[in-house]
């Protein structure tokens, strides 16, 4: 057998394995409608989540976000999203909503974390609602994130 055929065959075998995992991940994204359906908590103490918890997040449009819900949101310019609880919701008649969040363990709301001048969170900044979590499973991912390149790929969130 020509060496190129052997090489291609081997490469494709690996590529198929990787592609299948990738496609399964993408279908999870599609199913939950959330760009990051599974996240690992990086720091503990400010919320009822601890270091290493694995969070399951969904972002269905019909699932309205109410005060008391724990959400994952992203601030402009920050790469790592934050998971805190929504404490106030402002809703206009035309459907426009904005949110105020606060970490459970914090004594002040998150306005200090938002961008300069921002007092409320927009709906687009919210990655999704936390539906459940699995403790400790994410510790391995945190170990991996210490490697230089994998940093950007891994899904982490701070509380």
């Amino acid at each position, binding site marked *: 057998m020509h060496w190129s055929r052997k090489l291609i065959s081997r490469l494709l075998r690996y590529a*198929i394995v990787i*592609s299948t995992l990738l496609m399964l991940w993408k279908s999870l994204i599609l199913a939950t409608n959330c*760009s990051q359906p599974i996240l690992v908590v990086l720091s503990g103490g400010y919320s009822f989540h601890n270091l290493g918890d694995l969070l399951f997040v969904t972002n269905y449009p019909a699932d309205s976000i109410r005060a008391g819900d724990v959400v994952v949101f992203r601030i402009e310019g920050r790469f790592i999203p934050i998971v805190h609880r929504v404490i106030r919701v402002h809703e206009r008649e035309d459907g426009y909503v904005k949110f105020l969040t606060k970490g459970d363990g914090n004594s002040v709301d998150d306005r200090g974390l938002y961008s300069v001048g921002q007092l409320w969170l927009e709906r687009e900044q919210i990655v999704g609602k936390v539906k459940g979590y699995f403790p400790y499973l994410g510790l391995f991912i945190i170990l991996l994130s210490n490697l230089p390149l994998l940093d950007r790929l891994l899904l982490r969130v701070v509380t």
Partner: protein
Amino acid sequence: MSDTAAGVTTADKPIKVNKWETNAVKNALDDACKKYFKETLNFSEDYKLMDGRLYISFIACLFSGYALIYDWLNPFPKSRAILILCVIAYFILMGILTFYMQFIEHGKFYTGKLVDRAGVDPVSRCTVSSKLKKYDDKYQLTLDYNDGTDKTTKSLKKSIGNYFDENGVLCYDRFTADIRKMYDEARLNARKAK
């Protein structure tokens, strides 16, 4: 310990495998069979079956690569439609690939054709497939011989203990002797059927 026969070319060190590992044993036997067909019987290998599998895999990887790149450039909510398309296409292709490997390829690891030098006989084709169940020692080798006009199928089912010694070294001669017998029977059968 048996060394390879004089009829075989170049640096042929005896193949040694882990005799308890079914996959390795099957692969060793399949490779030896392919080698025999190619070197001794002078068949030229036909890659159509394998290429079909490679093409399907390649197209599937193209879809997944496209989804990856598109999603990287246009983060999630924007790439939704393309993602749905690529994911569905990918899994359909995986289904096709599984079907292909299960039913169309079905254990066939070698397809070869023999072109007669004199140009008198029509091209004869051989398709060889093998089966070795997971913790079983019975290796079944099936030869489909197509003479251009008639087809015969011959198979042999023997314990791998016939071909491997205690250290897991493949006794090439014993294996090829059996293959040769089967091949000759098939040829005879085809001639008789004419």
